[in-house]
């Protein structure tokens, strides 16, 4: 039996039940549409988040206080827990291979000028911040380089904060109040957008020592370190780790997070997202598969006589089986094609009307969706087709 003939024979029976055929095609199409949409959202989100993280560059790592990687309480055996201090940061600068060190603290504070005030995120940083965080100054200058202890009464405003407080007026040189302290505005940043969820424009940058004093902090939030690529991430991190251990009474009461680790953690989070998306899609497809299974099961029941006839005319059991499998596969394939089209169409429409929507359609995902739909049809068709093939021709011919 030729493939085209099997297809034609199968199609003739699908045509005979147009509505039913349409409904089972739809049941798969809806599943595939949601799979295509979900995967494009998932892929879009993945690329968005990865883009956010990798903008720092890859020759960087960060140090945060506390030990998060292994269990154990610091100081249980009488050893003192040392805080992550500015002196630590200065010491790291001396390590071979280290390029820049950026100690930082973070807090919320009210920034006031004239009658206006605004609560913003305040970063205590050094002159290294613009280069490391990929920011630039629009007016004036950033915090002066040199000893982190100096430049006590200076502040640099984020673009939005400056606009809110000063409007069109120049802000550089004015005095603002930050958490009660009077600081001179050295500069205003160029708009930067969001960085890891923080609005970098509605912020103020203070010298790290000033910020620690204002917020009454005795510990850094984080130290960012960049190194020269030719020295290698491993050697640099190990050297920094050894230095800090020595400074902290041989206690590893800090955590060193490399870019690779960050991406690794991120990857596993995104994997969970993908898994969830896949699970929802699989559920939708399962519904479609059940639809096809039901439809094929009914079709076999209705066409028992026809199956008996085909057997009497000399059809092999394998021909009967493939006839019904082909029908199921065709239904699912048509549903898959329709669903892919609808999914891609909806994604394009969505992107047009909601520009920020992280949608990313890949040919691979659409292709996979089609393959999966065909496989779904095959899987749903196996039972009914097997039943059709196993029918006793004598009984089948006699059925009404």
């Amino acid at each position: 039996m030729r493939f085209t003939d099997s297809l034609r024979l199968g199609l003739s029976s699908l045509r005979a039940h147009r509505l039913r055929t349409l409904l089972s095609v739809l049941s798969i199409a809806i599943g595939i549409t949601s799979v295509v949409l979900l995967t494009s959202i998932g892929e879009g989100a993945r690329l968005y988040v990865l883009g956010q993280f990798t903008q720092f560059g890859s020759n960087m790592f960060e140090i945060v206080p506390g030990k998060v990687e292994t269990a154990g309480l610091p100081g249980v055996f009488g050893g003192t827990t040392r805080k992550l201090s500015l002196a630590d940061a200065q010491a790291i600068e001396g390590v071979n291979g280290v390029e820049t060190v950026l100690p930082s603290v973070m807090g919320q504070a009210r920034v006031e000028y004239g009658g206006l005030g605004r609560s913003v995120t305040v970063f205590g940083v050094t002159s290294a911040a613009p280069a490391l965080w990929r920011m630039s100054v629009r007016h004036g200058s950033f915090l002066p380089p040199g000893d982190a202890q100096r430049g006590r009464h200076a502040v640099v405003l984020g673009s939005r904060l400056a606009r809110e407080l000063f409007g069109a007026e120049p802000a550089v040189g004015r005095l603002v109040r930050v958490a009660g302290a009077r600081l001179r505005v050295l500069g205003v940043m160029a708009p930067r957008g969001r960085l890891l969820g923080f609005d970098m424009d509605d912020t103020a940058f203070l010298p790290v020592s000033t910020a620690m004093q204002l917020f009454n902090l005795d510990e850094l939030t984080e130290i960012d370190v960049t190194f020269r690529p030719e020295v290698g991430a491993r050697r640099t991190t190990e050297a920094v780790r050894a230095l800090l251990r020595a400074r902290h009474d041989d206690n590893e009461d800090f955590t060193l997070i490399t870019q690779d680790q960050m991406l690794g953690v991120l990857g596993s989070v995104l994997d969970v997202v993908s898994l969830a998306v896949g699970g929802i899609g699989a559920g939708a497809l399962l519904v479609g598969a059940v639809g096809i299974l039901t439809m094929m099961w009914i079709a076999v029941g209705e066409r028992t006589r026809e199956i008996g006839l085909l057997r009497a005319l000399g059809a092999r059991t394998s021909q009967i089986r493939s006839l019904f499998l082909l029908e199921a596969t065709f239904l699912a394939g048509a549903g898959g094609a329709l669903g892919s089209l609808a999914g891609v169409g909806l994604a394009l429409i969505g992107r047009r009307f909601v520009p920020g929507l992280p949608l990313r359609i890949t040919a691979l995902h659409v292709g996979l969706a089609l393959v999966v739909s065909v496989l779904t049809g095959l899987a749903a068709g196996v039972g009914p087709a097997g039943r059709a093939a196993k029918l006793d021709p004598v009984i089948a011919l006699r059925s009404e």
Partner: protein
Amino acid sequence: MIELEDIWRTYQLGDTTLHALAGIDETIQDGEHVAIMGPSGSGKSTLLNIIGLLDRPTRGTYRLDGRAVGGLDDDALAAIRRRGIGYVFQSYHLIERLDARGNVELPLILDGVAPRERRGRVEAALEAVGLAERADHRPSELSGGQRQRVAIARATILNPRVILADEPTGNLDSSSGEQVLALLEGFRARGLTLILVTHDPAVARRAERVIILRDGRVVRRMPGRELQDLERALAGE
């Protein structure tokens, strides 16, 4: 040649064993015209199904053209059914969603004949049963006699050696029935073996040989014309 040797077909219905066929010994020569008669439940159809390889005997040996078919697998049996045996049913068994042409074409499709070759053969087969004009009609648009003629065209399109007809005129009026019988006998005249199941003596007596079954056994064999004598004798009582 069809050789049946001590053929049994038993069904297990709960505790009781039903013998649909209880030891049939019969030989049917090539080109013979045989009618199988008997009351309902006598095993006529079961016998026809076994001869047609749709059913397997519980016991006994069936040789078709000298070859024992008992050991053949399903695919081999399907191939013999396809090429060697043509079926005609009382209820026609046409597929409603296909037109006459599509129905007649089915055996060719199952046999993998190329589409180009099929067309001419289908036209010829329909022509042979006098329905070339109705090739585009669906079964529901045809009369009973026409439907049965489509079924005969379908049964004979692959030039089988044997035609098996289960009550071919059972649903037809006498003139349509006559047409159908004349067609079948015409094929037989060209060398095909024709085996009919019927309980109409008027159909049976046209056969060369009549086999009468009762309770799964052959109770009588006689030439067709003797059936006529018997009928007349019965009528004369």
